[in-house]
């Protein structure tokens, strides 16, 4: 859409350039050329996995995935933190919400995720739960301050990008001496799940579009293992149209050359070392734990949860809930997040399962692959 550049600021102009449609059309042409070359050479399209839900969303929204569908296979990976969360844990978070004595605070993405007994939105509509969507975990801390007679619980679901922000909220609550703030911590780590996918070898992936905002925290060095240990290429990418297109160009070039590199194509935000201070704060409160991923076994040290000494902020410890085994459904989210199937291959997609009436979390979160396909790829 057309907007006027609002400032003479040079960075503003540079950022504007990442959205320039004319440049995008040029880049797309170049990307297509390289992608066709790959098909020529290998007899099949290259297959890239994006491991970030925001990339999934952007590839679909900008029409890039659609524009390249005949020459490049873009596979969505486990990049939506809600989608990869084990169903039993989702059920527990929703069960936790019921009760007069508490306020559940959450990012918007969790609100409509279907639990075995309905979503948080449903609990809210029925008046069973006081659920509030916040933009920042710190807003939840503020709500706790303003409601001293209520327990305020934040549902802390996120990857490395979000984990330091969750830690910052705990830090704030600690500094304020709040006793009515706690967090259901469900931190997810990118490296273990990527290794799992590479190790099982279920999906053939030529290279990875690496999550630019996770890399903002971990740095380029946080992804070197991919090239060094697996010999697989990766490009750290931003999220605007031209950033993604140029990243695809770089990746195609790398795979054509057969190199194994980690290229930082988001250098104005991603440093070699990331943001070590932010991660240090995260490690003050949280530590790696074994975690069950949706329809995947427990992966060792693949999650982040409270250290024992911060149990008083740990909603799991303070408000234990027990939920039964989730009802099995025909939802194939588990395969979608591993890149084994495209959403369209799920028999429920667009029929029983729509964003208005989602069956699985992948149809809810705007980062979910099913939701992105439903919203942006149906014609």
């Amino acid at each position, binding site marked *: 859409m057309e907007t006027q550049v609002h400032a003479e600021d040079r*960075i503003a102009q540079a950022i504007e350039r990442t959205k320039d449609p004319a440049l995008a059309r040029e880049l797309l042409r170049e990307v297509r050329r390289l992608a066709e070359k790959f098909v020529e050479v290998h007899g099949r399209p290259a297959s890239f996995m994006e491991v970030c839900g925001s990339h999934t969303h952007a590839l679909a929204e900008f029409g890039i995935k659609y524009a390249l569908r005949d020459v490049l296979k873009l596979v969505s990976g486990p990049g*939506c933190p809600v989608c990869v969360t084990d169903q039993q844990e989702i059920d527990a978070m929703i069960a936790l919400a019921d009760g007069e004595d508490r306020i559940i605070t959450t990012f918007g993405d969790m609100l409509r995720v279907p639990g075995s007994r309905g979503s948080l939105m449903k609990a809210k509509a029925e008046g069973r739960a006081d659920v509030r969507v916040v933009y920042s975990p710190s807003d939840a801390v503020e709500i706790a301050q303003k409601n001293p007679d209520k327990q305020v619980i934040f549902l802390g679901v996120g990857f490395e990008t979000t984990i330091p922000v969750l830690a910052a909220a705990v830090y704030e609550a600690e500094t304020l001496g709040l006793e009515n703030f706690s967090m259901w911590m469900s931190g997810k780590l990118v490296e273990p799940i990527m290794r799992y996918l590479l190790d099982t070898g279920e999906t053939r992936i030529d290279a990875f579009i690496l999550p630019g905002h996770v890399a903002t925290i971990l740095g380029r060095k946080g992804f070197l293992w991919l090239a060094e240990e697996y010999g697989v290429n990766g490009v750290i990418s931003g999220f605007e149209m031209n950033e993604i297109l140029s990243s695809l160009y770089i990746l195609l070039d790398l795979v054509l050359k057969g190199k194994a590199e980690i290229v930082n194509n988001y250098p104005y935000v991603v440093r070699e070392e990331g943001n070590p201070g932010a991660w240090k704060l995260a490690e003050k409160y949280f530590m790696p734990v074994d975690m069950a991923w949706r329809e995947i076994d427990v992966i060792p040290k693949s999650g982040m949860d409270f250290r024992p000494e911060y149990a008083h902020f740990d909603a799991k410890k303070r408000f234990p809930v027990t939920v039964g085994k989730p009802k099995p459904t025909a939802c194939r989210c588990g395969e979608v997040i591993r890149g084994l199937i495209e959403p369209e291959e799920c028999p429920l997609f667009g029929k029983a399962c729509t964003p208005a009436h989602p069956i699985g979390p992948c149809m809810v979160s705007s980062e979910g692959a099913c939701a992105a396909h439903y919203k942006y790829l149906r014609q």
Partner: protein
Amino acid sequence: MCVGVPGKILERDEYTAIVDVMGSRLKIGILLTPDVEVGDWVLVHAGKALQVIDEQFALESIEAWKLINELREQGVIDPTDR
């Protein structure tokens, strides 16, 4: 994963700052980027600045086409591939 937007610091105090994102303003926390200054650009996620934007890199390499040209020159991308 996770939405991030660039914004420019308009003012700051010890723990918080006001950023401008294309004319809309947002109050953010700066605990994770304690050294930001007014006039800096930062990447904001979930109400916190995650990183200060490097102006040099932004100006040099933000323009994708230029970047690709450079990569080509550096040999990262096949220079014959035009």
